[in-house]
């Protein structure tokens, strides 16, 4: 009898016989800002360079950066790029594009509400285009599943910023993301490599929660106006050594500027003894 039952079960399994379906990530998602809330939402004083493995080129850029640059006509409606968009306030919608004949997923489509940007993650194994194809804010993405983790690689990303403090990202940035759904929470881990401005990969993470009732506000109408009267050709910036605000964050929290501006070594626990010596100085 037992043998018969086991045999029947095996037959049933064979009859249904398909691979386990992929976890679904479709839906409308909104950010949960428990992690890095101060940086991701309101922003803080100028000079927060902590946690980013910046090099000297990035430091020079950040020192010259004037936050009021966003008031320029050319920058008022500038979107965040794909490496940055998930760090700020954002709701997004994910849906599937399926091959009509095979019903296999050809791509995931994402609409990011902030700056109303569309993004495609190709799942059909296609190659990335050559290096000098035009870059976009959302870049060119391909993805593959590893178990229930969607790993996405993105290239051809326009240059923009890692932080509103003026840490720049280059157009040679490569982004690898891992999307992990557990219940109604979608974890998003990014690893950013940038040979121009970073000494090693920059890792960030965020959580998003499924909006069961959907989002009511998907529009982001941005209009260029003369926000603050200025000459058309005026670009707010600081010459070397003349930025009066670059140390504001360090001073506000009583941190050595060397630690705030230090890049990759400062992100390791091994840096703590150095930090203690600097704090005593």
């Amino acid at each position: 009898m037992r043998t018969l039952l086991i045999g029947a079960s095996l037959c049933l399994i064979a009859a249904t016989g398909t691979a386990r379906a992929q976890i679904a990530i479709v839906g409308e998602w909104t950010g949960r800002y428990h992690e890095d809330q101060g940086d991701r939402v309101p922003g803080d004083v100028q000079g927060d360079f902590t946690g980013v493995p910046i090099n000297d080129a990035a430091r020079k850029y950040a020192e010259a950066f004037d936050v009021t640059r966003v008031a320029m006509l050319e920058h008022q409606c500038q979107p965040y790029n794909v490496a940055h968009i998930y760090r700020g306030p954002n709701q997004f919608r994910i849906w599937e594009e399926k091959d009509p004949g095979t019903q296999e997923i050809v791509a995931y489509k994402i609409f990011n509400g902030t700056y109303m940007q569309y993004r495609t993650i190709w799942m059909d194994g296609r190659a990335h285009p050559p290096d000098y194809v035009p870059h976009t804010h959302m870049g060119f993405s391909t993805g593959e599943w590893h178990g229930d983790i969607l790993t996405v690689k993105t290239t051809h990303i326009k240059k923009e910023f890692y932080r509103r403090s003026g840490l720049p990202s280059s157009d040679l940035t490569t982004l690898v993301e891992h999307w992990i759904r557990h219940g109604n929470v979608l974890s998003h881990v990014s690893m950013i490599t940038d040979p121009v401005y970073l000494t090693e990969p920059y890792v960030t993470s965020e959580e998003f929660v499924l909006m069961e009732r959907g989002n009511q506000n998907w529009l982001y109408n941005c209009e260029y106006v003369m926000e603050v009267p200025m000459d058309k050709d005026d670009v707010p910036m600081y010459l070397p050594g003349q930025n009066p605000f670059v140390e504001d964050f360090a001073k506000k929290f009583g941190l050595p500027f060397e630690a705030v501006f230090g890049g990759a070594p400062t992100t390791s626990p091994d840096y703590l003894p150095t930090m203690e010596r600097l704090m005593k100085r």
Partner: protein
Amino acid sequence: MRMRWPLIATTAAVLTTLAGVAAAHHSFTATYFEDRQMEIEGKLLQFMFRNPHSFVHIEAPDENGTMQRWAVEWGGAGQLSGQGVTNQTLRVGDVVSITGNPGRDPADHRLRMQYLRRPADGFEWGRNPGETFN
């Protein structure tokens, strides 16, 4: 900039259905001295009701008595719509009194709106619950 009222009215009709996206495209703390306040009173020159942030331009004297064009940053149109502010709320020529956080560069003559009052009819914004923006 000459205001095209029919276009702005249409835009406002769309935006009133929106809850307002907090885009936070720049840090207020980095742009303004949030621990300081100053008050200006003068004639409204321009009211730009839009995203990401609305702006009000006021002609008012600076601390030296020299007339300046002040740029006062306000909430996004979607966010303000939820608080009863529309593109018709303020008109060119209105005399208004504004209290705000000054910009970090005094040469910009800019404020972040904290409180607005129009003495002619007593209209005010910024003292009632929910009258805030980000």
